[in-house]
């Protein structure tokens, strides 16, 4: 059974690879490369896979999941400029894909330590653009 919890955070970012000239960044990322950045209301859906505990009827305590999501994702990300305030985005371009990858890295070990299996995450950058990631390798081409 898969259970999904949703959280939101608002953050600004700029999609710009510092190793490339401005013109090339503009070509790759369009308006998302504008130097002073821009922001989104991100919506994150986190899905866990498990079997309901016969005693409680629950896969896990949702309050516990909420606390983990708040501590590991919302607190570090919310109302921040990702490129300047949230590593690794000082080095890694904060595309939705890379943000999803970073969120996976933050959450998976914390959940595994409590015996929970992270199934997949879905990150909405806007209501019309989202990324699904289930931790599959390879992450890169």
């Amino acid at each position, binding site marked *: 059974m898969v259970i999904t919890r949703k959280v939101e955070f608002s953050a600004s970012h700029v*999609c710009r*690879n510092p190793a490339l000239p401005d013109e090339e960044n503009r070509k*790759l*990322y*369009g308006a998302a490369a504008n130097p002073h950045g821009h922001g989104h209301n991100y919506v994150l859906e986190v899905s866990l896979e498990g079997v309901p505990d016969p005693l409680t009827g629950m896969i896990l305590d949702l309050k516990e999941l909420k606390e983990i999501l708040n501590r590991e994702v919302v607190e570090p990300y919310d109302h921040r400029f990702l490129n300047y305030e949230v590593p690794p985005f000082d080095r*890694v*371009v*904060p*595309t*939705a*894909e*890379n943000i*999803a*990858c970073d969120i996976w890295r933050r959450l998976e070990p914390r959940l595994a330590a409590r015996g929970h299996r992270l199934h997949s995450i879905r990150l909405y950058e806007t*209501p*019309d*653009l*989202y*990324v*699904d*990631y*289930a931790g*599959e*390798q*390879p*992450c*890169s*081409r």
Partner: protein
Amino acid sequence: MFSVTRRYHFAASHRLCSPHLGDEENRRVYGKCANPYGHGHNYVLEVTARGPLDPATGRAADPRRLDALVDRHVLAAFDYRNLNLDLACFADTVPTSENLAVEICRRLKRHWASEFPGEWPTLEIVRIAETPRNIFEIRADEIDQIKRESA
């Protein structure tokens, strides 16, 4: 591997009526959807591309390329049209949302390499919502199977 999904909107009219069935039978099979003058929907189309990250860009699929492909090969042809009368592909095929999903998937697959010439990303899923409560989904790798079945 990532799945990147982009959502698009188009408005179109259609009438569900099979030339192989009589009026009464069409009415029985399709209900109100068979009304002679047709009716319309605000369709919501989701297109999912799948692939690994390109380390140079940090992206698995460039949404602007996807937009260009969908604008050119789907929205330009379908938005503000009567599917039965304006689209040759529905002259002999009932424009149910299942058939619409197949047609959109075929168009995107046919032209995919013009925007995505490399190995990745690939077209994974086409999902179409006729209304917020009626949603139809097809995997791109199922399309060839449909071709074979109908051939």
